[in-house]
Structure formats: structure tokens, C-alpha cells
């Protein structure tokens, strides 16, 4: 048998079996071709992707290497104080020339043939450009200005930095949407931020599962026993869900209650353990901050690249870096404000015990995302049922007993990818 396998540019048919997004086909979590289309449509076009907090690169020449989707980029503070985002890819042989995560540079020099670049990406030097002893060198048509590092569109918004490969991208505010800007600006209102540090984990699951996790107010009161018992997140607390008109971003906004047992919420919830009290209350020594203006937790998903967390006194950005359809890196950057007292900083650091790869709450999420991936990959023709709260395509909600935000994300997903 002589069977030729041919590459086909024809896109495979939609994995969605019906209209709407109350059913999600497992294939979206493991299909290699869909993954390539997601990278192109979501990470490389038409979206502002998170790259840094300004406080990570406070001084001229400070840089940070990071990723947008699966592409390496560098975020650097230029001499005039502005922030540039450059492809971490030498214009000569394509080497990922910057191998350090953080540093300070006057120029970037690729070690391979020492092409040198200014902090704005302009090519500044090419060894042997004019030849050696009259021999060789670049041709007369070689123009330095044609061979700089590709420079991305950048938006620095009150201390948080987003970038895009897409020159035609819409303004940042309309990207985030008028519905969501108020709570986005509640955290990032222009106050100086201070960097507390990083946590990084590699989760063997599809990157969208993490977006879904933070668009899912159904699970916290069930999966996160730690949350439940100490009243940090319960289905009976005052809450609100916001979503942008296209369905891609969302905010889960809630106000903590005093804990204890509420029969309707805890009846039948096997994970509820009423008697648990903290041995050392400093672990969750919550102090109301004036800027909260009420809500004690606001969890924001800015599609596709980042989650912005305020859980009581703990603040972080959580960057999503996909690595093929089956795993992603999850990078937590914890921060505070420049006017925090030492006591407040200590409080933020202690509450960080709930988050990150070791988090008393977040650890559960990484685990169940891997459980989802294990079965979704094995059963690609199966589908998820996302019908809590109805079959709508993603709407704002005055309560949390709904999966509407996930339906909204997949409405946007289907529309954007033409599925």
C-alpha cells in the first residue's frame, strides 16, 4: 500500500455540534490546528496582550524577557523613559539573543554575529558591514534601517504594560470595554506600584481552561474548601458579574461575608467543613483598603493573556503563556502600592499563601485543570455542559450561580475563528 499523506490548507470543520456555546467540544482543548489558529487570532492579532508591570523595569535600560503567546519578546525602558516591546529575535539569523529574564542594557547585542540594536530596536551596528580589507561585506543596497528588531505597539496604562503585534489594533480602552474599565482602573488608577515577586508554574492543560476557571463562579464555593470555610467566596455573598459586549473579557466582583453555615449554600456540599478555624489568624488578617469602595474581591480575565487578581489584600497579575494545546506556563506577579505601610506589605505576603503553585486555594485550580485536560484529550468527541444559569451567550449577572461568562468567551471564540 502506497499512501501519500498530503498537507491540506483546508480548515477542518467546526467541532461545535450545535448553535450556542452551552456545550463545548473537547476538541478545542487538544486540537493542534485549532491551537495554531488561536495563537494567530488571539495572541498575535487584534488583542492587547499583557507583558509587564512598569515597576519591573523602573530605570533606563531595564529590561524583562517575556512571551506573547509562544513568541519571545523583550520589554525595555528606553532612555527617554518610554517603554518599548521588541521581538526577541535577531534580524540577522533569528537567534533569541536575549537569554536573561531580567537585566539592564545600553544596547542589545546578539552574541552570534554581534549585530547591535538600540533600546528602540533600531539596528546600530553590523560587524564587517563594509568588508575587510576591501573584501566582502554587505551589498550597497543593505540599509541599516531595514533590519531593526520588530517593535510592537505598546500601551502603558497606569503602571501596567500591554503590547500587540497588530499595528491596526483598536485603542486599549475600547479593547477592555467601557463596561470593564471602571473596575480595571480601580486597581490601576495611576498609583505607583511596588513589585513583591514572582511565582511560576507549568500546568499541563490547555490555556483556555485557565481563562474559564476565572470566568467560573460556580466552582470556588465547591472546590476551594479553604475559601468556603473562611467566608472568602460563597454563592450567597453579594456579587456581580460583568462582561464586555463581545464576550471575551469579564469581571467577577464580590463582597465577603462573615462565614459560618448557610443551609442553602452548604447543604449537600460535601466539601464544607464548618468547624475549621485558623490557628494563626494572621494568615488571613484582612484589612479593608479605602480604594476597594466596597467589593473585597475582583477577579478580571483580560482575554487572552492575563488575569488580574484582587482577593482581599492580595494583588497579582497572572500571565498565561501557552505551550502547544496541552500545556501553559502561568506566571504570577505579586504587587502592592508604593504607599503601603510595612504592615500592609507583610499582610500581602502572608495572604499570598493562598495563591500561586503552592496556594491554599489556587493549587486546587492547577490540579483540576490537569484532570480536565487528561480526559478531554482522551475523549476528543466528548463535550462539556456549560448550562448553569441558562444557555445565553454571555451576559452580565447580578449573581454567581451561572456559567454565563464561559459561554460568552466561547461566543467570541466561535465568532472570531469562524467556527
Amino acid at each position, binding site marked *: 500500500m502506497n499512501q501519500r499523506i498530503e498537507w491540506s490548507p483546508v480548515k477542518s470543520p467546526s467541532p461545535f455540534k450545535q448553535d450556542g456555546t452551552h456545550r463545548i467540544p473537547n476538541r478545542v482543548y487538544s486540537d493542534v490546528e485549532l491551537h495554531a489558529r488561536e495563537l494567530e487570532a488571539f495572541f498575535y492579532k487584534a488583542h492587547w496582550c499583557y507583558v509587564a508591570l512598569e515597576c519591573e523595569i523602573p530605570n533606563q535600560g531595564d529590561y524583562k524577557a517575556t512571551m506573547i503567546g509562544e513568541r519571545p519578546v523583550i520589554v525595555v525602558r528606553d532612555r527617554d523613559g518610554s517603554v518599548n516591546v521588541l521581538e526577541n529575535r535577531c534580524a540577522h539569523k533569528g537567534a533569541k539573543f536575549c537569554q536573561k529574564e531580567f537585566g539592564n542594557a545600553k544596547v542589545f547585542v546578539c552574541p552570534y554575529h554581534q549585530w547591535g540594536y538600540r533600546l528602540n530596536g533600531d539596528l546600530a551596528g553590523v560587524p564587517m558591514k563594509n568588508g575587510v580589507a576591501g573584501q566582502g561585506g554587505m551589498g550597497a543596497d543593505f540599509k541599516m534601517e531595514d533590519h531593526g528588531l520588530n517593535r510592537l505597539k505598546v500601551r502603558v496604562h497606569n503602571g501596567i504594560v500591554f503590547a500587540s503585534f497588530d499595528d491596526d489594533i483598536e485603542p486599549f480602552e475600547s479593547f477592555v470595554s467601557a463596561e470593564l474599565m471602571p473596575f480595571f482602573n480601580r486597581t490601576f488608577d495611576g498609583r505607583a506600584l511596588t513589585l513583591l515577586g514572582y511565582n511560576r508554574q507549568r500546568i499541563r492543560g490547555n490555556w483556555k481552561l485557565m481563562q474559564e476557571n476565572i470566568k467560573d463562579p460556580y466552582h470556588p464555593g465547591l472546590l476551594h474548601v479553604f475559601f468556603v470555610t473562611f467566608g472568602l467566596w460563597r454563592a450567597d455573598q453579594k456579587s456581580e458579574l460583568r462582561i464586555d459586549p463581545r464576550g471575551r473579557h469579564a469581571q467577577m466582583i464580590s463582597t465577603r461575608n462573615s462565614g459560618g453555615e448557610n443551609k442553602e449554600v452548604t447543604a449537600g456540599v460535601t466539601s464544607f467543613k464548618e468547624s475549621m478555624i485558623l*490557628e494563626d489568624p494572621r494568615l488571613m488578617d484582612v484589612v479593608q483598603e479605602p480604594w476597594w469602595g466596597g467589593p473585597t474581591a475582583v477577579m478580571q480575565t483580560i482575554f487572552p493573556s492575563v488575569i488580574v487578581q484582587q482577593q482581599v489584600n492580595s494583588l497579582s497579575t497572572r500571565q498565561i503563556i501557552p505551550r502547544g494545546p496541552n500545556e501553559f506556563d502561568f506566571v504570577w506577579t505579586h504587587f502592592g502600592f508604593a504607599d503601603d505601610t510595612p504592615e500592609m506589605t507583610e499582610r500581602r*505576603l502572608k495572604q499570598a499563601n493562598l495563591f500561586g503553585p503552592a496556594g491554599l486555594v489556587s493549587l486546587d485550580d492547577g490540579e483540576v485543570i490537569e484532570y480536565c485536560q487528561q480526559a478531554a484529550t482522551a475523549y476528543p468527541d466528548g463535550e462539556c455542559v456549560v448550562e448553569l444559569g441558562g444557555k445565553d451567550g454571555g451576559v452580565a449577572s447580578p449573581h454567581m450561580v451561572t456559567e454565563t461568562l464561559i459561554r460568552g468567551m466561547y461566543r467570541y471564540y466561535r465568532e472570531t475563528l469562524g467556527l
Partner: protein
Amino acid sequence: MNVLDANAVLHINACYGDALDRFDLAAWQALFLPDAVYRAQARENFDSGLPLAAIYLDGHGMMTDRITGIEKTLVFAPRFTRHIIGLSKIDGSSALTPFIIVQTITTGLPEILATGCYHDTLANTSDGVRIASRNAVYDNALIPNSLVYPL
């Protein structure tokens, strides 16, 4: 004078790895002084002077809360861990001790969970050497998904 005996330091580190690998977290906790601080901190934070730690427990009370969290509230796949703890470089009451921790999740293959160095302050007590502070500084900033038990 707080002169540390090298054999006593070997012994406490052997007990430390043994307690964690048997998931006997009460025995792990008992190796710390009541007001001891335990951290598991990524090296990138430690080297840059950034204070964030993945686990930060200030005293026996918080250690108890972490233990309760692990044993009664957290959801995670069953796993084994194996601490390979190296020889200590002792300087006064301080010690630097390298470690490798391998984990095996359910019936999967073993993988390295963390490699790094314990930065310790140790104290002689009537019960032997105890930990006054331990920062498990791990080299691999990236954790394979979750860090359930202390390093």
C-alpha cells in the same frame, strides 16, 4: 555559644526529609522552634531581594494551618516525594544545605519537583538541633503545576 555539631545537623536534615516523605507533617513541624519562620521561595525572588515566597509560614500556628489545609481542604492527585538532602556548609548558627526533591504522581514517571538550597538558622536545644528559620530557595522558578507539601 551556639556551636553546631555537623552530625547533629546531618541528623535533623535526615529527620526532615524522612518526615516529609512519609507525609508526617506533625513530625516535620516539630523540627522547628515554635516561632520559627519557614519559606519556600523561588531563587529569582531571593536573588533579586524580592520578598514573595510561594509558602511563607511564620511560626507553628501557620504551620498547623498549612498542615490542615493540605490534609483537610486541598484537592490534589496522589503523589510520593523523595528528598535527597546534601551536606551542609555550616557557619556559626547558619547552614547552607543543597537539596533535590523528586516527585512521582500516581502511577506516572518520577520528575524533579525542585532543586535548591536550604538557607537555615539552627539552634541547639535540650531536644537537639532545631530549625529557627529555613528558607527553601529553589532554583527552578517554574514548578511542575503544584507545590503541595513543604520543600
